[in-house]
């Protein structure tokens, strides 16, 4: 019996491979774009992760109601048209005639399922974008109505974020989220999954049912995980991949000068920062946080670590976002005041554990400088390097003193950004720092309701001022994306929102 079952399985797999081999006609090899990234793909379920490796892939698999064009403007996506009610609390979206990768139509019911799943599923990691949604109604097959508790000015921008990619209700309910997002997920974006080897690569093929005519311009893509930057560079130079993420700041200048590959330094909604745990000594004391910020010579850090590829951060928010408080001086380098604050707080001699996700030469370098500069004010430090996943877990568990980290925003509006970084009541305890200021939370909520851009600006700038002065985190700098691309491809880039423009990419022939 055992043998015959095995034989059957063998026969089935061989039939399968013959069938898939038949799909591409002989002679025409599909154009495959290969990208090596140091970030890992941990899940294909857009509600389950805010890890950068997953964010890089979500956008390739799932279309949203809106999309952003090359210039960064919001364009219709799966929603062809939309209307807003007079009280700005009800939106009606009219879906275009689009299909999932299994050929079934994308319906109002799927949109409803997607939004409510993000809001209600206890395992959804990032429900903040839809927290204001009261209900979603499928009016008919292609009309969906979203009711909000109160007006939300950036709501359409919010619907574009990669976590709100539309997924198939029928498939997720039939197979269950466990299977539906691991074995050939049904997708709505430019690609579907041909093969996923966790820890190695995600092999994508063009989704034949993708709604954008003529896209993707290639036959598929491979997103390859290569943790070591040197290996990625070697692969790019050898032509094994067409693009790499994270070239490394120290190498950008010399690679730009050599010109063998293109290193465009793409703008990013990005901030590098130090997270401080406000729930534990010594950083529960505002004076110690201020001292920690004042003790850092961030100009020197930007020169030595970032090689001046970006500016020193002056607020808790990425500078590329709307309403950034540009004329705010931020924290200067003032050792004397820092020492004074440390003395007042009586915190000298405290040991601080700094978590670093390894391997990252940049973070290790920042850690080294932190160690030296915090020693100047009597803060002893111990740097603990750990795996990316472990680092995130410790962060979420609040098991750290300080963490060298970065985050980016999905769109240019400050709403989600400030909810993510400094809002104590928005689900992630202000990026797991336990920073909490009722006024900040109130201002963020008020700004989301405020239709007048000038008034919103005032509110958001107050939030930045307060959270920076209270050292919610220590902002370090605003770097660009430093990716490297082969000259043999065109159309591939990275948007400020950490999305590859993969569907536009093709090899030059």
């Amino acid at each position, binding site marked *: 019996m055992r043998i015959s079952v095995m034989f059957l399985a063998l026969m089935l797999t061989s039939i399968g491979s013959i069938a898939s081999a038949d799909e591409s006609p002989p002679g025409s090899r599909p154009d495959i774009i290969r990208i090596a990234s140091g970030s890992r793909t941990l899940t294909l379920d857009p509600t389950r992760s805010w890890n950068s490796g997953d964010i890089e892939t979500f956008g390739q698999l799932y279309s949203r109601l809106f999309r952003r064009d090359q210039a960064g403007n919001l364009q219709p996506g799966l929603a062809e048209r939309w209307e807003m009610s007079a009280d700005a609390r009800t939106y009606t979206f009219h879906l275009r005639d689009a299909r999932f990768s299994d050929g079934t139509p994308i319906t109002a019911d799927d949109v409803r399922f997607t939004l409510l799943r993000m809001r209600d599923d206890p395992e959804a990691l990032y429900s903040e974008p839809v927290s204001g949604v009261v209900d979603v109604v499928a009016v008919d097959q292609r009309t969906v109505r979203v009711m909000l508790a109160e007006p939300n000015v950036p709501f359409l921008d919010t619907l574009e974020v990669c976590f709100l990619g539309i997924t198939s209700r029928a498939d997720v309910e039939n197979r269950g989220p466990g299977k539906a997002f691991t074995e050939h997920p049904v997708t709505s974006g430019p690609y579907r999954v041909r093969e996923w080897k966790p820890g190695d690569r995600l092999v994508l093929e063009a989704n034949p049912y993708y709604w954008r005519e003529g896209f993707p311009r290639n036959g598929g893509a491979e997103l390859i995980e290569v943790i070591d930057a040197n290996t990625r560079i070697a692969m790019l130079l050898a032509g094994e991949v067409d693009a790499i993420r994270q070239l490394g700041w*120290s190498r950008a*200048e*010399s690679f730009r000068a050599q010109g063998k590959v293109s290193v465009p330094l793409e703008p990013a909604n990005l901030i590098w920062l130090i997270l401080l745990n406000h729930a534990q000594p010594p950083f529960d004391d505002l004076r110690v946080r201020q001292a920690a910020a004042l003790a850092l010579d961030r100009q*020197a850090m930007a020169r*030595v670590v970032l090689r001046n590829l970006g500016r020193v951060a002056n607020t808790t928010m990425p500078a590329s976002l709307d309403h950034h408080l540009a004329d705010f001086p931020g924290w200067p380098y003032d050792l004397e005041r820092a020492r004074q604050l440390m003395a007042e707080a009586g915190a000298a001699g405290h040991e601080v554990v700094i978590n670093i996700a*390894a391997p990252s030469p940049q973070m290790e370098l920042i850690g080294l400088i932190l*160690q*030296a500069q915090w020693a100047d004010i009597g803060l002893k430090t111990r*740097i603990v390097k750990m795996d990316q996943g472990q680092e995130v877990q410790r962060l979420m568990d609040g098991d750290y003193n300080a963490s060298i980290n970065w985050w980016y925003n999905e769109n240019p509006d400050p709403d989600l950004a400030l909810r993510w970084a400094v809002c104590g009541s928005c689900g992630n305890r202000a990026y797991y720092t336990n920073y909490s200021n009722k006024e900040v939370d109130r201002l963020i909520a008020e700004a989301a309701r405020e239709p007048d851009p000038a008034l919103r600006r005032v509110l958001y700038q107050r939030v930045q001022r307060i959270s920076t002065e209270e050292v919610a985190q220590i902002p370090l700098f605003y770097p660009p994306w430093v990716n490297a691309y082969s000259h043999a491809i065109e159309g591939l880039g990275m948007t400020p929102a950490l999305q590859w423009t993969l569907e536009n990419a093709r090899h030059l022939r």
Partner: protein
Amino acid sequence: MSEQVIEMTSRPGVQADELPLNLKIGMAVVIAWVLLAVLAPWVTPADPNALDLDNVLQPPGAAGLMGTDQVGRDVFTRVVFAARIDLWIGFAGVVLPLLIGVTAGLFSGYFGGAADALLMRVVDITLAFPFFVLVLAIVAALGPGVGNLIIALALVGWVSYARLVRAEVMVIRNAEYIQAVRTLGFNRFYILFRHVMPNAMAPVIVYAMTDMLLVILAGAGLGFIGLGVQPPTAEWGAMIADGQPYIEEAWWISLFPGLAAISFGIGLSLIGDGLARMLRVSN
């Protein structure tokens, strides 16, 4: 054979001026490194961990004999201070397994029996894993750091010594002079340590030299992948890794610790060669 016997009778002991040349060179290199390591604070111009963010990536020359690294630390100072760590890893990582392994091998080889069989199976299992992989696994489990690295080296390294000594002992225990002392009624531990051990040590000492090289490379290798010595402590392997992102513009960060490791390694293998030749003569 007869020639050697004649040689042995004509030279009861090896004189210093008759040491093989490679042994002399090796000793000179190793002693030089030991002196540098011991005298590190006095022979170097800077603090090995002092950052100078205004003088980063300075080439060898005015900014120092070997230039400065990515945070402005003096590379020469760090190479010398790193010798302290690497030599300590080499010393502790050999002495500890040597003591454990020799003791195990002596008893195992001399007394035999079930304990011997058991011990040799443990040795077989340990040897079934590649040396570096096993050290890596143990360090990963215990956590990075010099102490844990030395523990891992001891746990993995002793088996080679045990096997080596056991083989020697099994030959020696049947030798006539051992039978003679046994007949005279000496205590068996006395026989084991006074008569068997000294005669079994020659290959161990030769092997220890090559082993030290291996151990230092393992230490540097683990430092290179971040599991060895933790920053900011200077260590050759970690320094080579630190310099990697800068290799196009600042080759000196990686080159000098690399040369240091190579020179020390060559010194050790010359000593190993020399000792092997010398001990074969006196055998």
